[in-house]
């Protein structure tokens, strides 16, 4: 208790200094796993609204790839993907919400970094989406590479690491640039397509969605090949409950692994008859995996049946099944040239 208070004061001081990100760990005792089990509902922190990742649809239902990860964990825990209470969180509040125990896990397009892993008492559990900062330019500028952008005016959103990465990149390349800073993303995108600046920089997924949905003519714009930052986005849990950490990590891996072995929400029942020992282990036909996690052996079956595999979630939310139409890119399976490489379920 004393420690919690001391921590709280430390956090208070940190906030006063304008930085939540440096606070020490609250190290809350008590097993999150047991708490979630007893409560019968998962409390999952998501973005207040980021299309494709977590946003309410016209009926107020949460949709998105981050949201699907929450649902997958609920499916693994309870065999019911709807047992989730979503907490929409702003970027300032997200980490403290997890630290304070207000939520059980955070799945809110949060970049995995050393600071977040080590210094503030949180644990990343895997990568849901590999993103990175890029540049969008009009084709008529005839620019083929970011290295030719010297002297350009650049539209950028304020208060994000994007701004910092941009400055770092141009300094490293010894180029000048004129930043045009916007608070709101909508304004920024509108300004860029109105010709206010030469370049629009943001995470590649944002660039692609902006070009697909808001450009007067998407073919007039091109995303340059350079990606200047690494933004692996994934779910986080609190320090102090390794079993819970494992459940969240392996729920995500189960989605990825299911895609690798071709198990989808549609064919999962047929797959129960499969002779592939890997598939048998994943689906709990060969028992043991779920038990090791403290779950039902049907845990992965439930995830795949109720939420779908990673590929299904990707296509539905950000890929070809959505208006964003993002290519798989880094987010393809390792066997297809991407970075998705789930640890084996065995």
């Amino acid at each position, binding site marked *: 208790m004393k420690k919690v208070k001391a921590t709280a004061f430390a956090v208070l001081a940190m906030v006063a200094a304008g930085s939540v990100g440096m606070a020490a760990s609250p190290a809350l005792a008590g097993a999150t796993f047991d708490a979630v089990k007893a409560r019968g509902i998962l409390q999952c922190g998501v973005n207040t*609204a980021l299309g494709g990742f977590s946003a*309410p649809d*016209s009926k*107020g239902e949460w949709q998105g790839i981050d949201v699907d990860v929450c649902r997958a964990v609920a499916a693994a825990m309870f065999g019911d993907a709807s047992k989730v209470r979503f907490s929409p969180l702003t970027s300032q*509040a997200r980490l403290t919400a997890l630290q304070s125990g207000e939520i059980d896990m955070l799945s809110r397009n949060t970049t995995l970094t050393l600071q977040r892993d080590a210094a503030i008492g949180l644990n990343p559990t895997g990568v849901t989406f590999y993103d990175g900062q890029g540049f969008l330019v009009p084709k008529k500028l005839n620019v083929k590479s970011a290295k030719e952008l010297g002297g350009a005016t650049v539209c950028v959103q304020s208060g994000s690491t994007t701004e910092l990465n941009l400055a770092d990149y141009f300094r490293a390349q010894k180029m000048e640039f004129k930043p045009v800073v916007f608070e709101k993303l909508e304004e920024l995108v509108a300004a860029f397509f109105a010709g206010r600046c030469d370049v629009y920089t943001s995470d590649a997924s944002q660039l692609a969605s902006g070009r697909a949905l808001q450009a007067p003519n998407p073919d007039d714009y091109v995303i340059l090949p350079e990606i200047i930052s690494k933004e692996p986005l994934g779910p986080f849990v609190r320090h102090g409950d390794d079993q819970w950490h494992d459940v969240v990590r392996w729920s995500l891996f189960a989605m990825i692994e299911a895609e690798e072995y071709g198990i989808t929400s549609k064919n999962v029942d047929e797959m129960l008859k499969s002779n592939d020992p890997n598939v048998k282990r994943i689906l709990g036909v060969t028992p043991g995996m779920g038990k090791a996690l403290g779950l039902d052996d049907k845990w992965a079956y439930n995830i795949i049946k109720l939420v779908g595999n990673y590929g299904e979630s990707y296509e539905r939310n950000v890929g070809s099944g959505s208006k964003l139409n993002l290519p798989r890119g880094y987010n393809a399976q390792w066997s297809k040239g991407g970075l998705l490489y789930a640890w084996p379920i065995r």
Partner: protein
Amino acid sequence: MTNAPEITGETDIAPPVSSTGIVAWMRERLFSSPLNIIMTVLCGLLVIATLPPFIEWALIKAVWISPTADACRAARGGACWAFIAEKHRLILFGLYPYDEQWRPLLAALVNIALIVASCMRRFWNIRLLYIWGIGLVLISWLMWGGVLGLSYVENTKWGGLPLTLILATFGVGFAFPFGIVLALGRRSNMPAIKTLCIMYIELIRGVPLISLLFMSSVMLPLFFPEGFSIDKLLRAQIAIIMFAAAYIAEVVRGGLQAIPKGQYEAADALGLSYWKKTGLIILPQALKIVIPPMVSLFIAMFKDTSLVVIIGIFDLMNATKASLTDTAWKGFAVESYIFVSIIYFVFCFSMSKYSQQLEARLATGHKR
């Protein structure tokens, strides 16, 4: 008898300038001085320059009905009201379960009825307290449910207009008596009470609402032992009440100070106790004086509730923002902001109009 003045052609006077009708109105209001003429012409030009394109955008080229965004994107240069048609329930009711949204609708109507009843003079007695009690129970039952046949909806799913109204109404409703007590306390002769009130008011006024909300949602949970948490919405509501109370206190203090000393002395001379003096003589006059700043404050508080965006509560404004991120309907920010501005405007303008009427009705001597 005096001679009638001789009427000659030279003394003919021109007929008086017409003082009624549209020409006179224009002459008086729009072209009364060179500066006014210039302003009128400039404003006229501005209207001519902006109005036709706006009408063309908002009405002529607009897409009214369309199941998908494609028709809107095809009709370039026109507003996409189909977006509002698609998203109005998300904007108005946030994340409330779709099939149950008649409940927040009813709750909002009850809430508005409460406000209207509070505005009527014939309810200005003890009955108003009962009405509020009943209204509160009714709104809670509709929003939460869980008894009498309604399914339970936890308040993390509340949103949109009903939530904005709840935050604003109960924010101001509870802050008002609290603020009056603070104002009286600040003018008290008892040093301890006076110091406490001054400290509270200055502390709260010294920080922006956003930081209060932020503290309530981000910092407060860290002080509690694990497993114990006060509901996020309640925390926000309390922060709004605390904030509004400090400002109301200062507005009321302005009124208290404007009452001539003779009124206090007269009340004392009649042998009235402190509470009778305050309740019967001082406060009724003081509150009447402060109607204009008080209403400004209420309007400001109504709009300030949108700051709960910062802690991820889906009030009217945040629900609007959320509606903009749907990838299938991206890029219609202007339409949705116009829609939500109209809602805010209707409420704020009604409040302002009502306060003008109230002032006129209560004007009994102090008016200058």
